[in-house]
């Protein structure tokens, strides 16, 4: 059993194992299947395909488990598939709402990818969406009539992005100034942000619609007509221009990250902070801006949500879009093209899941089960899929789905 440890695979895992006692070439517990040998040429070819095959297997596994759960909930697989399909692409309405969800996810994911390039993980999409939505509602309901209609919608969305950015900047400031892990702070800010939204829609002094009877719902008044997102114009489809907005945001972000000096600097920060610092890169400022941008993306998504039908803010506004956007960002591994594809797939899955509940009686939370299983599957198998690509091409930030080395060893200062 000594062969596995001296195989070429093991040798590529890094610089020489300084701590390894020579007499222990066959430790009692091998450190996981990663060190097993590749068997011949076929094995090598399989290994080079691993970055694609392993996540694919994870996705398929998650879908298989979800199918089993749907069956447990009393639907036959055929019924469930039919309901899912109907909800995804069955009607122009279904397609339109799926596209709208995809647009929101893409906006969150775009922000996530910008921060991720700098080695930061933004888990705070949910809270940033809430703040963006609150800001958008405040502008969209209270804007004086003298403001020209052309300016209303841009203003609403701008304020949404700014509010999300402000929320993100709290975590960004703490990360830069005090070295607090942005994962923990953005996570906690989600709870505070959700409470801010609840506060806003429950207090008449804030955004709640005037209470006229005991049946007045805790939600805001509808946004003024000029603040509504225009529809794309496809017949019977609720699809709004949000999808154009999201694609544009992703395209701009992609260009900036790939073709500008700022993009290169961000990547440098993501790769190694000490090295970037020595090269004269303003590390702190870039980290701060990257996480704030992530907040702006999610805040914009919140603005899009209130500016779409039914054009009111209520406390169920962001039902997990923050997490789904994070899923898109993580799975995209730095690629905006991939993010567009994955956001579309998840958007359709989410809409399909809602119909799964309506038509087949399977609880809609099954889509969240699928999403989280995919993340667990992909992140859990990173030792097989990420390492190989990392040794070959060091351009991707190390924080992908693999283990992070430096970025977040400090949980607190």
């Amino acid at each position, binding site marked *: 059993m000594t062969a596995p*440890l001296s195989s070429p695979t093991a040798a590529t*895992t*890094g*610089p*020489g*194992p*300084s*701590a*390894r*006692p020579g007499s222990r070439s066959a*430790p009692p*517990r091998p*450190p*996981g299947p990663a*060190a097993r040998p590749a068997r011949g040429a076929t094995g090598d070819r399989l290994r080079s395909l691993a970055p694609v095959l392993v996540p694919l297997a994870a996705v398929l596994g998650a879908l298989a488990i979800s199918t089993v*759960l749907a069956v447990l*909930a009393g639907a036959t697989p055929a019924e469930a598939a039919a309901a899912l399909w109907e909800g995804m692409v069955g009607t122009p309405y279904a397609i339109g709402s799926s596209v709208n969800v995809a647009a929101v996810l893409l906006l969150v994911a775009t922000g996530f990818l910008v921060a991720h390039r700098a080695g930061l993980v933004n888990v705070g999409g949910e809270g940033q969406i809430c703040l963006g939505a609150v800001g958008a509602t405040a502008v969209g309901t209270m804007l004086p009539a003298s403001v020209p209609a052309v300016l209303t919608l841009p203003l609403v969305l701008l304020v949404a992005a700014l509010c999300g950015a402000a929320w993100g900047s709290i975590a960004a400031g*703490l990360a830069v100034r*005090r070295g*607090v*892990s942005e*994962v*923990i*702070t953005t996570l*906690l*800010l989600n*709870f*505070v942000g959700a*409470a*801010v939204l*609840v*506060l806003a829609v*429950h207090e008449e002094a804030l955004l709640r619609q005037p209470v006229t009877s005991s049946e007045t719902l805790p939600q805001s008044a509808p946004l003024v007509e000029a603040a509504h997102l225009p529809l794309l114009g496809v017949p019977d489809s609720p699809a709004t221009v949000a999808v154009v907005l999201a694609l544009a945001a992703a395209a701009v972000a992609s260009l900036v990250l790939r073709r500008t000096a700022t993009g290169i600097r961000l990547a440098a920060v993501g790769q190694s902070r000490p090295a970037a610092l020595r090269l004269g890169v303003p590390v702190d400022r870039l980290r701060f801006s990257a996480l704030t941008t992530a907040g702006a993306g999610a805040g914009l998504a919140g603005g899009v949500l209130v500016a779409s039908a039914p054009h009111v803010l209520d406390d169920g506004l962001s039902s997990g879009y923050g*997490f789904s956007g994070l899923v898109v960002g993580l799975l995209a591994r730095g690629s905006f093209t991939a993010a567009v594809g994955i956001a579309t797939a998840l958007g359709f899955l989410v809409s399909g899941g809602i119909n799964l509940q309506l038509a087949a009686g399977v*609880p809609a*939370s*099954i*889509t*969240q*089960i699928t*999403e*989280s*299983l995919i*993340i*667990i599957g992909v*992140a*859990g*198998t*990173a*030792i097989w899929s990420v390492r190989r690509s990392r040794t070959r091409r060091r351009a991707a930030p190390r924080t992908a*789905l*693999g*283990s*992070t*080395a430096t970025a*977040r*060893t*400090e*949980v*607190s200062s």
Partner: protein
Amino acid sequence: MMLTLTDLLVASIALAVPVLVAASGELVGERAGVLTMSVEGMMLTGAFAAVVGATSSGSALVGVACGALAGLLVGVLQAVLSVTLRADQIVTGIAANALALAGTTFGARLLLERGTEVPGFARVAVPVLSEIPVIGPVLFRQTGLAYALIATVVVLGVLTSRRTGWGLAVDAAGEDAASADRSGIAVLRVRFGAVLVVGLLSGLAGTQLALSEVHTFTDNMTAGVGYLAVVAVIAGSWRPVGVAVAALVFGLAQALQFTLPALGVDVPFALLVMLPYVLALLAVAGLVSHSRPPSGLTKPFVRLGRAT
């Protein structure tokens, strides 16, 4: 005034116990070098399983066993991911929480009926001691499960203190895994076990919440308490007493939600809901304590070569 202060303290302790139990498990995990973000999911799964077990068997004790087992199972999942597969601990932890939230919501639709009586634990007044003003009702009128869990926390604290071999092994695995490995400590086994402890205690914490306090299961009933437990460990500077104090503060902050409106103080409910999380933010921002996490926290250990 005396009465309301007592009410506030009673509610604080009641809400602090789940945080304390989960946080003391998490403390062991973090000292061993594994950041377990899935405490929230373990608590929620524990609460769900406890309610399912208790209603289907009619016995609260069976419920406790189910809750503990469910927490342990999520612990196994997290340990395999964090320790064996060396996956990103934070990402998988948050994903496990999302899985637990969606899974229990899904399961509740299928397995639980609204309005069913859930066998739970009633408050037990310790004779004589519970008659002491203020302290009596606060400390000596908890449920049997709460007493048992506090005892468990104390025993765990003693067993993993720095005066025992286990405690030293846990610290060694978390501070310098390579040296611990060379000195003969089975680092991966210690870490795996530590995550299981997190799972077990978090499952019990969820059980306490469901069977002693709320007496039912509602979707997302932990609502972030698990994250408070993780923060309590940071705020408590990775020391048992500090963690216990932090858990009490979080309990107090949560208790204000229920006590202030009862006192007629007109504060928007949402402000009170966000209070524990604002405190938690201040705590992690280093405004409460300045201390160093275990050096190996979130760093996976591989015997061959360096940890990636």
